[in-house]
């Protein structure tokens, strides 16, 4: 069974049709890249999958392991293995990063009927994960993302992803705002999480990220639907020619 199966998904935001019959299938172990110009519907797809309010699904389905994702609250989706790495991670003053991580992890475990982690086991996992991403202890003591640079926020997203061990990871423009060194750290973090049981959907404008995280499948999103699917070579072709070719094809 496909890990993620999106069928004919249509979404309206503020009376505007953003997704327009989108189809996408992601199997376990695969990394998919979704590329497209501004306004194609890339971030809308990410938000709809995670369950953000304000998006009206007017048709279609999104199934995670055969289960209707769109009927669930965001926290239920997370507990079933859906993870969204935010394009703009939010700052939450007053909520300590450690409290946030522990509350999230234990809430998910509880929903899945697993025991809560002991404090030493939790601390060990955070320390190991943080160390690999170059996140120091001082950052973990601060409020969530408070005073973090853009790169630090993205690394914190990957730390959360590593701790929560989701089955489907959707990365929304994770490369935006990163310099080349930070991009490598983030890409290494993602690559470490690649496994035969896990699927990835990477949403990006640029081919650059795909030099570091090699996709199995590349899709072109244009006016709310997938208009072309290919291998990694498709990303290179887009980088060279841009999206102009789709102007006529889609029309």
């Amino acid at each position: 069974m496909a890990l993620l199966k999106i069928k004919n998904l249509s979404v309206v935001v503020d009376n505007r049709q953003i997704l327009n019959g989108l189809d996408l299938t992601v199997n376990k172990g695969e990394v998919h890249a979704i590329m497209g110009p501004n306004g194609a519907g890339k971030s809308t797809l990410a938000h709809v999958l995670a369950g953000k309010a304000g998006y009206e699904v007017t048709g279609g389905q999104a199934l995670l392991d055969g289960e209707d994702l769109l009927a669930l609250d965001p926290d239920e989706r997370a507990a079933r293995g859906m993870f969204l790495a935010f394009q703009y991670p939010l700052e939450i003053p007053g909520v300590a990063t450690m409290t946030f991580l522990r509350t999230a992890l234990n809430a998910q475990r509880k929903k899945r009927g697993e025991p809560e982690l002991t404090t030493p086991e939790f601390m060990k996992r955070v320390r190991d994960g943080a160390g690999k991403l170059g996140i120091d202890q001082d950052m973990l003591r601060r409020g969530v993302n408070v005073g973090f640079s853009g790169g630090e926020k993205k690394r914190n997203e990957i730390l959360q992803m590593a701790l929560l061990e989701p089955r489907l990871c959707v990365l929304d423009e994770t490369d935006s705002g990163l310099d080349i060194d930070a991009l490598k750290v983030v890409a290494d973090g993602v690559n470490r999480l690649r496994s035969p049981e896990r699927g990835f959907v990477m949403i990006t404008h640029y081919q650059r990220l795909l030099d570091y995280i090699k996709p199995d499948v590349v899709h072109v999103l244009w006016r709310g639907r997938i208009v072309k699917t290919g291998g990694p070579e498709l990303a290179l072709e887009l980088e060279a020619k841009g999206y102009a070719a789709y102007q006529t094809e889609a029309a």
Partner: protein
Amino acid sequence: MNADVTPIKTAAESALAASFAAVSLPGGEAVTRQRRAAFKAFEIAGLPHRRIEEWKYTDLRALMRDAKPLAPPPGAEAKSHAKAAGTMVSGLHAWRVVFVDGTHVPELSDAIAEAGVTVTPLAVALGRGDGLATESTAANDPAFALNTAFMSDGAVIRVARNAAVAKPIHLVFVHSGGAATAVFARSQVIVEEGAHLTLIESHEGPDALDYQINTALDLRVGDGARVDHIKIGCEGNSALHVASLVAAIGARATLSDFTFTLGGGTTRNQAFVTCNGKDATVTIAGVNLLRHKEHSDYALVLDHAIGGCTSREVFKSVLDDESRGVLQGKIVVRPDAQRTDARMLMRALLLSETAEADHKPELEIFADDVQCGHGSTAGALDGDLKFYLMARGIPEHEAEALLIQAFVGEAVETVADHGLRDALMFATARWLGARS
């Protein structure tokens, strides 16, 4: 032709006058004169109402349809209600001084064994002829005047020069229920030069009883002294609670004041704080956690009478259902109070469509070399933040609780003692746990 003008009194005002004429209160001649002068000042002003600016959000004349009879000294039954009192914020390791219906109860209180501190019941102090000087800043306030007129008991605490009281002193005030009575408690705390005291007060009583509390604390912080004061209000849902803090701060002294109101029918806290010496540091903070039809009004007058002092004011209200949170803060900087640094923040979180927040920051600045600022916000929980937490698997109710605790935390952080901060946050979590 001469005509005496007799102002028309409300039923409550008439009852107060009759009560004042009839009652026998502790104190010698000097105290009696003071009481009479205070009552006369009250009679001229009458009960404050909504056209009196300082009281516009808490109309005492409308709220006090009648004046309740003065509470009699507590019997064994009344005292038995007070054994578990003062635990709405749990885990406070403090010397307990317990007052039931405004009367000191020695058998429920600790014998304080610390060098340099004396605690005397006010009734005893007045009985042996000690006078109580009244601070001028509050002299015109009718509620404080009433307190002076009727004060029956309370704590008189003196901390000697350079003494550091290791354990906090907790004044536990309990209304025992039974009859709807009126209580006028008055405490005076004098912390001499270089001394340090942490003072906790808590106030509580039963639901569904319209008792009336008028309590006052007269606080003197000596030069270089430090006082941490935490007031916890948790009165019954029909109670009327009016509290006045009158504080005089000496040079290089530190006052950290925190008012925590978790419920209570109608609560009015007023603070008259005066910086009398240079280079003092004052922090006035407060948190309102309100639901149902609870009403809390905090009114601060902070007088920078002398320059070089720093003050920070941080107030947070979390308002659910049809509750109402009022925050009023007036900062006065006198003409010679140069180099004053004062900042005031008032923020309200509205958890329902029908809750109401009223904020009134006021700056009256007469000096030119000062830094003063204020900010005020009121709004709902941030939906984007909530989504971020939920997207990580945190259920909606828990996500909201985390955000509310973070909101409250900014004010609680002003409390220096780690254990007290934890206790206040724990009480906040418990309040949130009872949210429907």
